[in-house]
């Protein structure tokens, strides 16, 4: 019957070993590595101090990647929220086939990124894609749009990403919507509030906190997104028009084989996220103090 603390530690040991060895240690090693000039495969390394950080401060490619990252994360965030919240509000109403639809809406989020990407590359194909066919048929464009060319690759990437990730917003928002007491809506109805005012004065205040979490998580996830961006544009060609920070860090490490520089970019990425998160918490807290 007695439960020894030692047994507890033993049971926890495999988890701690894995997390310590494969997450915590690499995080610290990454910091260390960012101070060295190191080849990705060869054992040679040379201490350079903060030189990499100084380099990136003047590196046009770095600033471009930050800019692309902000454009990508910002636009996908807004569109995911609009689509996801509307879908959740709809799926919170009672109608036939609702449960089936709740399942189907999750599909884009469940499938591997590679599938989402090849699927949208096919839909957006310039010669045979369905999207161009419909745009031409509807007379909206005169010539096929080169969706995957340099002018539109960012738009195509945003479309693909919003489609892939809006179900996350649906599920999290819907989970909170379901816990709002029906009495609140009934009281608002008695007061003669229409649908928009019920949303504005009941739903929105009630779901404030979950929206906060969704915005925070989605911005972090989108700003650190690698696979969708990399698969959509590859390494050469149009890739430089969507080269976000994670892709740039990957290219530095595994294409140019400059592991130290890649590590420095990872640290910078982390610091930016930290700063934005802290600022976000602060703004929210001040807002709450005012309200």
């Amino acid at each position: 019957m007695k439960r020894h603390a030692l047994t507890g530690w033993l049971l926890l040991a495999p988890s701690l070993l894995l997390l310590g060895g494969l997450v915590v240690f690499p995080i610290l090693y990454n910091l260390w590595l960012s101070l060295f000039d190191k080849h990705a495969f060869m054992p040679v390394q040379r201490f350079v101090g903060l030189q990499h950080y100084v380099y990136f401060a003047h590196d046009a490619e770095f600033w471009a990647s930050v800019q692309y990252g902000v454009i990508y994360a910002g636009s996908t965030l807004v569109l995911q929220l609009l689509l996801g919240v509307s879908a959740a509000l709809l799926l919170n109403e009672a109608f036939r086939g609702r449960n089936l639809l709740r399942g189907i809406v999750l599909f884009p989020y469940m499938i591997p990124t590679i599938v989402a990407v090849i699927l949208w590359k096919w839909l957006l194909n310039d010669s045979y894609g369905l999207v161009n066919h419909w745009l031409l048929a509807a007379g909206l464009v005169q010539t096929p749009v080169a969706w995957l060319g340099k002018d539109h690759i960012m738009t195509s990437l945003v479309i693909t990403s919003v489609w892939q990730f809006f179900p996350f917003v649906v599920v999290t928002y819907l989970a909170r919507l379901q816990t709002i007491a029906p009495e609140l809506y009934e009281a608002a109805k008695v007061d003669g509030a229409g649908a928009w005012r019920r949303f504005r004065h009941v739903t929105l205040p009630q779901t404030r906190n979950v929206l906060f979490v969704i915005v925070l998580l989605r911005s972090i996830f989108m700003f650190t997104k690698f696979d969708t961006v990399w698969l959509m544009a590859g390494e050469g060609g149009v890739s430089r028009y969507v080269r976000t920070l994670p892709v740039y860090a990957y290219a530095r490490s595994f294409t140019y084989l400059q592991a130290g520089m890649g590590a420095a970019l990872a640290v910078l990425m982390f610091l930016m996220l930290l700063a934005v998160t802290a600022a976000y918490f602060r703004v929210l807290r001040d807002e709450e103090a005012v309200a």
Partner: protein
Amino acid sequence: MRRRLALYGGGLVLLVIGAFPLAWMLSTALKPSGEIFATPPTLVPKVVTLENFRRLFAETSFLTYFTNSVAVSLATVLLTLSVSALGAYALTRFVFAGRERIAGLILMTYMFAPIMIIIPFYILVKQLGIVNTRLALVLSYTTFCLPFCLWLLRSFFHAIPLELEEAAMVDGASLRRAVWHIVLPLALPGLIAAGIFTFILAWNDFLFALVLITSDELKTLPVGVNDLFNATIVDWGMIMAAGVMITVPTIAFFAAVQRYLIQGWGAGGVKG
């Protein structure tokens, strides 16, 4: 009446957004090559053929990638569930100094995106001598699923009254038997939810597979299919067939246990 019309209209739009691209993938995969490029495009294939699937299996290494993905994903699920069930049990049933702080720290490791540690991770795996092995993939996926699974199972174990296992042990059952026959069956929905998350993460991952695996015969589906896509002029029918083949296990798995998944999802959210 207008309200109902709006509801069903909205539902239809949502159905098209969620399902149409996947239906179009299936439709393309089942068409003969002439029909794939026909103008105007046919939404439902006029002629249904499995030719694209035959070429996929006969002329590419798709089956190898598929087998690798199945092996790696299942091994990851097994390892993650064992490790996290032990850990979560320790975090709920044993009292020791710093327990809650450790639980908090574990959650913090969840905040690090793989791309932020992939470089030191790669160097570490290389030094351990397991670069380019399936083991490296299983260990990476297990580690990245652990924080979420530990927290999920912890909340499930919390909900099971301690008295149940104590009663069994008063009746003479060992701790191990009490856990095996009483605690784990009661936490089954949690185990299933954690298992599905783990499976999907391992099945879908691209970054670790890209960095850690170099031999073609060890590649998993996402990287393998990306190679097929980039190899030559795109064979759209065959690529869509590959897409269908990768998607089916996920959706089948998911459909089978959807209600557990929603439950677990509400409990903690998922990464990505």
